[in-house]
């Protein structure tokens, strides 16, 4: 549990003042928010399921706040029991970690098995690794894709082909005269 999770806890505390939804107790549409430190993520999820009976994970995803250099993990959980809503039946669980590619956090697949694929998607799209996920491979992008496309610093190009904005501009410059020649 310790070891890989020693990412910049201090900077997070300093920036807490800016955290949009973090300052509120519920989201705009009324879901109660529970924010925890990243070290407590697995515990928080386990408590939500075992003590509060929130037995259904709707989705687990990440939001990349590039201005704060942090990755926010968001999980929407609720209780699926019967047709009626009972008391405290839904919650948003949040935690923040560094946005560096390869940052690690504990997997919650042991709490809700469905988290396995949601975490694979977060790894694929944001580059966050989940310790304890039984099958952490890319899920939507091809296996030899090198970037994590939903990050805000993702550049829309193929990094593994060596194509950059500069080479594209150069190619375009070279091709321009011949294209004009062929069309006229």
């Amino acid at each position, binding site marked *: 549990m310790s070891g890989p999770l020693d990412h910049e806890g201090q900077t997070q505390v300093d920036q807490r003042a800016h*955290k*949009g*939804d973090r300052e509120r107790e519920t*989201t*705009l*549409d009324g*879901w109660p928010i529970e924010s925890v430190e990243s070290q407590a993520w697995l515990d928080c999820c386990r408590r939500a399921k075992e003590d509060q009976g929130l*037995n*259904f*994970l*709707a*989705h687990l*995803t990440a*939001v*990349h706040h590039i201005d704060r250099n942090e990755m926010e993990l*968001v999980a*929407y959980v609720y209780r*699926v*029991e*019967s*047709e*009626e*809503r009972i008391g405290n039946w*839904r919650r*948003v669980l949040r935690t923040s970690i560094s946005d560096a590619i390869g940052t690690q956090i504990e997997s919650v697949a042991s709490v*809700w*098995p*469905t988290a*396995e*694929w949601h975490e694979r998607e977060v790894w694929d*799209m944001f580059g966050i690794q989940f310790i304890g996920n039984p*099958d*952490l*491979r*890319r*899920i*939507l*992008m*091809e*296996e*030899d894709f090198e970037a994590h*496309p*939903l990050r805000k610093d993702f550049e829309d190009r193929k990094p593994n082909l060596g194509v950059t904005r500069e080479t594209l501009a150069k190619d375009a410059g070279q091709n321009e005269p011949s294209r004009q020649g062929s069309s006229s």
Partner: protein
Amino acid sequence: MNRTPTDTFVPARETPGSDRIDGPPDSLAKLTDGTKFLELSMGPQHPSTHGVLRLAVRLDGEEVVDLKVDIGYLHRSFEKFAETWQFPQLAPFVDRNDYLAGTLNEFAYCLAAESLLELEVPERAEYIRVIMAELNRIGSHLIWFGTFALDLGATTPFLWAFEQRERIYDLNEVVAGGRVFPQFFRLGGVRNDFPDAFFPMVEKTLDSVETSIEKYDAMFSKNPIFRGRTKGIGVITKEDALGLGCTGAMLRASGVSYDVRKADPYSVYSEFDFAVPTAENGDVFDRYRVRLAEICESIKIVRQALKAYPRNGEILAKLPRKLKPPEGASVYAHVESARGDVGCFVVSDGTDQPYRLKWRAPSFSHLHALQSIAPGLMVADLVAVVGSIDIVLGEAER
């Protein structure tokens, strides 16, 4: 006899050598009786996979020992695109996520965007939305019925189902212009009112679908061949279904009465009297029963909505000229789609474009659940199970 493999199954990649995360594909494990497992790729191009899906199966003779689902062939970066489009522009785009239930997808998106932008939808528009959404659900279930029967080797029901589905599409065309993708919902309401021609057509369609459901039921439910192929096959228990994030008919067939329209009522669903069909065994047959019953419930809702539908009033709320959602706010709206619980999570940064949009797709979780259901099945039964799940890959891969 020890038939369990000693190693964990990691499917061989389609393009060997390009594998950066898994390490090299593992070799075929040897069994104690000297035979070997057969590793086989079902798909990506296979008639039973309902799209472009690859099932990497490890077989012991005819029996599935292990299965890994490989998706991503239809990934078209919807969530990334969404970050560059304005809120009203996205409403027609979400149709394409689940291409069999476009209207229901629009419903989820519009609910999320409306709660973020704090728009009030006029009551009349809510009724129009519910009618169109339920017709869409009937259409989607009819397609499911046809293709499911086709998976089991019955060709004719496919044509029956498409005949009825065509009527639903005609209704879409009369109301919205589009057939498959009506693009009918707008933020704050719907695009236009029902034309006069719609009302007699919808009555006829509902009657026709109702009669044909009776026909399907008579042909299938007591048919010994069909029962033999589906009873006790592909069972998922209540606990597993919940843990694996199953919703919709998958969950209800396992005995959990969960329907977003009842559990977290949105729009005007709380006004209608309808049941949530459930079954006990969680097998292929029960999923079939639940879906057929759901078509009948949807017909009931449409009939009630047509009666209660207010003939006068606004159908579209005024959209402010400048969209200013609260900065840093997030919303999550979910609806009961034809396949299950479809959710839309939007984070705003105060501009007229989403900062982040996440689409919760039931098919995504159902494909994950397939990995747990499959071991122990025969290959032919695997096809039936995939058919009974009712996957739409456009939705799973977004």
